[in-house]
């Protein structure tokens, strides 16, 4: 009994050492405040106002951080987002990324594409090997985006932007999209949008 207690305590201490509970440099209030601004477009409940605005609730933390960093540096261009990040700094990006990654991805229930469109999408996915980076069921991880259940129109726009170079913050993704036929992009977007989010891979 005694030794069981002791090892439980050590286990707890181990967890704490591994996950320090030290607050981040930015105070909780300012993350909340900053997040308020985001709700105007990305949604009060995680469902974006416009179909061309991406879901950011429940997106992967590393990916969110890198996008905010890239909007700020200009590597990724968006009039709306560059205005938003102009007054924010790296520590804010980290805090915002952690904040939105911790929220629940909204289920939009977008319909599955027709059979031949799904088939076209799966052929491209198998050929390029999209899941080797976006992982099983397109959940993504780290700095790679979750695609499952993302807004269909946004996915179409951003893949097109990768392809024509107007989204230039990831040349690797641009190269891969250039290897995809333009007519396959819509089926891909619809297929990815119709997938379910499986709430974390662990």
């Amino acid at each position, binding site marked *: 009994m005694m*030794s*069981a*207690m002791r*090892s*439980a*305590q*050590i*286990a*707890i*201490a*181990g*967890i*704490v*050492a*591994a*996950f320090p*509970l030290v607050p981040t440099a930015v105070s909780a209030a300012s993350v909340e405040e900053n997040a308020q601004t985001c709700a105007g477009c990305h949604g009060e409940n995680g469902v974006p106002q416009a179909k061309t605005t991406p879901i950011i609730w429940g997106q992967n*933390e*590393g990916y969110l*951080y*890198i996008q905010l960093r890239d909007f700020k540096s200009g*590597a990724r261009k968006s009039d709306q987002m560059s205005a938003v990040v102009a007054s924010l700094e790296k520590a804010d990006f*980290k805090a915002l*990324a*952690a904040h939105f*990654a911790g929220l629940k991805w909204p289920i939009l229930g977008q319909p599955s594409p027709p059979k031949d469109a799904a088939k076209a999408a799966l*052929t491209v996915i*198998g*050929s*390029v*090997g999209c*899941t*080797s*980076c976006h*992982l*099983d069921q397109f959940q993504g*991880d*780290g*700095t790679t985006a979750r695609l499952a259940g993302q807004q269909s129109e946004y996915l179409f726009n951003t893949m097109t932007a990768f392809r024509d170079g107007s989204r230039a*913050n*990831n*040349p*690797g*993704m*641009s*190269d*891969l999209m*250039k*290897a995809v036929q333009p007519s396959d992009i819509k089926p891909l977007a619809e297929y990815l949008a119709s997938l379910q989010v499986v709430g974390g*891979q*662990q």
Partner: protein
Amino acid sequence: MVRMKSSHARAAALTALLAFSALPASAQEIEHHKTEKAKPAAPAPTVTQEMLTNAGSDAKQFLHTNANYEQTRFYPGKQINASNVSKLRPAWIFQMDVRESLETSPIIVGEVMYVTTSFDHVYALNAKTGEEYWHYKHKMGPITTYCCGPNNRGVAVLGDKVYFATLDAKLVALDAKTGSLVWETEIADPELGYSETMAPSAVNGKILIGTNGGEYGIRGFFRAYDANTGKLVWNFDTVPEDSVGVWATKDASGHDMHRDIAAEKAQLAKTGDPYKTLGGGVWQNPAVDLKLNRIYFVVGNPSPDLDGSKRPGDNLYTDSLVALDLDTGKYVCHFQYIPHDVWDLDSVSPPILIDVKDKDGKTVPGVVHAGKTGYVYVNKRDDCGIIRISDVMVAQENFWTLPTPKGARMLPGANGGVEWSPMAVNQRLNLTYAVNLHQPMTYQVQTSPYPEGKLWLGGAFKVIPGEEQFGNVSAVNYNTGKIKWQVQTPQPMMGGVLATAGDLVFTGEANGWFRAYDAESGKILWSFQSGAGVNAPPSAYAIDGKEYVVVGAGGNTQIDFKRGNNIIAFTLD
């Protein structure tokens, strides 16, 4: 950065925990661990250098990722052999929490087995019963940058610690008995494209490790850390400041690579040596020669993978065998298989140190490596020079066709040939066993500037829909270069091989079949359906006079094989 954990820090942390216990997230953790039944510590004996040195003749334990310092993946036990392997059956199956790509090599110390999973969990198991002693989950940093699956290939063991490396580019030491954290060192910045999936190696108080990142414009390295403190002992940059080389127009096998040397020279004059962002990861274990006091490893592809226009020269030491002094990390010799690679055909299957016949039939110390090209390369250990190149194990079609903007078809594809899968050798038969992929691809080239740690492929490689894909298990005589036997498998092969003194060869397939082959003839002697892709290298060990073969069945992310979460140990009745 090195973080030491003392009992003092523990006490402080515990206080902090009590103070913050109102926070919902941590409260959950506490609940979870309070209700978990306390498990006995793992009874792992201390691993001495002598044990590691003599691992090749130890049939009880499996102490190195590739069985021994020579990386022969040859198990000296013969209780399980060609005459009785048909009676092999599962002794136990352990199901892990993570159901993702599984590439771990089980390590067995005494009666304790260590295995790892995708996303960097480590388990200590009872090797006899499959019961869990402890389970460590690495707390992943938010930023990870890796291309080809959240893999982890296993642990290294030394003293009373187990060592592993993580997707967020940390080297971690755990207490072998309790699984508690001893130290953690940041190897490199994941925001710049560095990550870790390989198992470290342990030798003479050092922990050896390379890095991934050839798809992100890193500058590759190979390093030694102090096993006790986690401090850096030495660093070797796999890309030297003069990476140009000799402007070789042919690869090691003598095929013309269609380089435009004049254009490359003009580019060099304009932009200088590209060494800072040239890639050159090392993502599989080195072989260790304790007599020569050297290590031998192979270096991965140049960055960007498919676009050579901005990286003039041979791109040393990418796609090469490299030997270093073990104590100092100083360069000894190298041999480049593919100068100025534009097909992502990096050198990755771990090199093996065995005696081989040289060109005059004299026995000399050799290094044997399987390339993504589909060749087995046999090199000399003294100066890294080439002795011979085997028959090609996978058909070559349009070999060294340059990638084009529209896409050009070539076989082998970017996975090889032979991928990271380690070979195994049987020195009685002079055979090395490799697993192959037959996977034609189209290679497309695009030019873009260095993207500061983002994906930088320089184009795309695509599997061709409708074209046939398959695999082989190949046995190659390293003294003649001839293929002795070859067995075709329905899917491309990725995982690795174990050979045994029972004249068996074990390897698994994407469709879940784990098989034993006759080492001499290639006849299939035993098969087991594992329910998920067997894409991990097998290990073997013995407890109470009983031999076991163990393998992970969890599928693979990179080529999307059926996922699972099983470690399966087999034995005879």
